[in-house]
């Protein structure tokens, strides 16, 4: 098993290498001279020269790449062209709102979606199941920013229950924090709930056809124990997998949600950087987000052995 853990951890290296190459080459995938592209339409020749110098664009490509990778390993993601601050510091400043939103959404989605899926599987082919499945299809199709504006319109503008936009840090008190993050969490969580509920339902339904479930039922195990201990526990591997895959959805959604609700997180940082062509920041953020995704999925793969003792590598 330790061999598997090590092998699985090593397998993230080629993935991250591809990510690094792609993120590095992003600038070269687009047509034209990179320095001119970054400088924008109204740049003077000396601006272009300054950017070329600052980013080392006048050196050979492979030198640039290895310098960049070397810097990344020492925690140096470069200097923002726009604000002249280290990219890592910029990311650090914006990390809290994004992490708070992502973690709240994840907890909210799992807490809502798993019982929903179990219920739908238990009441399969009844109206309860139908309602859950219709909700899942609707939730999966509704674009996050449309839902965001709808929630904002109903609960903030008309009912006045929540602040319209903005973010309050946890340090400002839990009440204001939760009030500011509630609507973004729901908006972002919807698609995730749909995804997890659907997978939970399918997985639990499959387990419910197993012989040991029939045996448990025959010996008079009550429904609650049957569903929780026998069905859900054995159905957990696909559910946990989809939670990991959904992190990609979550990351994309965070960027949009932060824009809708004016939350000053990594998403806003990315959009601002993209609109200003602040290339080192774009690189840094994409690298960090991809790293998070790879790490989460690594942890999930490793958790299989804990979830299901039958899995032995």
């Amino acid at each position, binding site marked *: 098993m330790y061999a598997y853990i090590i092998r699985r951890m090593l397998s993230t290296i080629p993935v991250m290498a591809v990510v690094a190459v792609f993120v590095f080459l992003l600038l070269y995938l687009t047509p034209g001279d990179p320095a001119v592209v970054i400088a924008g339409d109204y740049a003077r020749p000396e601006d272009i020269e300054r950017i070329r110098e600052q980013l080392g664009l006048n050196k050979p490509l492979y030198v640039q790449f290895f310098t960049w990778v070397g810097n990344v390993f020492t925690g140096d993601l470069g200097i923002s062209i726009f604000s002249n601050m280290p990219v890592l510091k910029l990311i650090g400043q914006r990390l809290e709102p994004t992490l708070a939103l992502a973690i709240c959404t994840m907890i909210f989605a799992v807490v809502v979606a798993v019982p929903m899926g179990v219920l739908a599987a238990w009441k399969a082919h009844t109206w309860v199941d139908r309602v859950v499945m219709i909700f899942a299809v609707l939730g999966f199709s509704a674009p996050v920013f449309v839902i965001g504006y709808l929630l904002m319109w109903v609960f903030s503008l008309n009912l006045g229950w929540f602040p319209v936009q903005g973010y309050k840090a946890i340090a400002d008190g839990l009440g204001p924090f939760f009030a500011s993050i509630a609507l973004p969490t729901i908006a972002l969580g919807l698609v995730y709930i749909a995804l997890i509920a659907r997978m939970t339902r399918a997985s639990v339904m499959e387990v419910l056809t197993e012989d040991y479930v029939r045996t448990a039922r025959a010996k008079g195990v009550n429904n609650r124990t049957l569903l929780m201990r026998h069905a859900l526990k054995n159905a957990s591997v696909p559910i946990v997998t989809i939670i990991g895959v959904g992190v990609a959805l979550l990351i994309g959604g965070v960027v*949009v949600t932060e824009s809708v609700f004016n939350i000053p997180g990594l998403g806003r940082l990315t959009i601002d950087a993209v609109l200003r062509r602040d290339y080192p920041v774009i690189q840094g953020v994409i690298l960090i987000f991809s790293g998070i995704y790879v790490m989460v999925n690594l942890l999930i793969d490793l958790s299989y052995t804990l979830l299901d003792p039958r899995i032995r590598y």
Partner: protein
Amino acid sequence: MTAATGNPAVSTLPPRASFGKRARRLIRRHPTAVVGFVLLLAMAIMAILAPWITPDPLRINPIIRLKPPGFTGPLGTAGPFGTDFLGRDLYARVIHGGQISLVVGLSVALVATVVGLAIGLLAGYLRWLDAVVMRIMDGLMSIPGILVAIALVALAGASMTNVIIAITIPEVPRVVRLVRAVILTIREQPYIEAAVVSGVSLPRIMFKHLLPNAVAPLIVQATYVFASAVVFEAILSFLGAGTPPEIPSWGNIMAEGRTYFQIAPWIIFFPGAFLAVTVLAVNVLGDGLRDSLDPRIAKRMR
């Protein structure tokens, strides 16, 4: 699908039922898919007919700016969806916006499918290529697609072509994975081995023997790619890194409506509703196709 089964002379299919009969059967078996298809068709017809059924979406008329839905203008012109901050007719803009979504959705679905199919066929069949290609695809799939697309459009410049390319790149790995998975399951089948032994050329094995097996799942996948591309385009435009802002795409209309959301929420809600309904229609259609094309998956997912 029937075209792929080839020679009609040896076909053992029963004679075709009448159109009406087949349509009724389809509606009974997959009611939601039919609803999705009809909705989508309606959207497409509206978008195509947009220049004839709506006023000019670009005509600025500041006198009637930010009017609510259903107002009647000074000359008796009715604006069913209201107007935006420049007094442009929102109904005209939203219907025209459907054109952008359709073009982007169709182009991305087509390009991603063709490119993904080519890479997937090669990777699935040629073992030495497989490991390399799949590691690259794993890497690409780890990068959040929206971020890649925004960055590409921002750096390459806002144009329809760039938007389509930028959305296609993150979609390709999904298609590759699907095609490869299909190929892996049939690569060891005796009829493939027989073809290899009898000296059939590689391209012929790919197109004649491997490709037809991937057609059904590919069609299903293409509908999901379409839905995802329509959302991506809207998100990119909404964030300001998509279709050029002077073109009335749904995302652009919503982006312009952000500032006025508190006083004129309809500017966001109408394109938002059209976007949501379109995506829903495509997804429902995809689910229906999946169920009817592959009963095995259907049983598991239902």
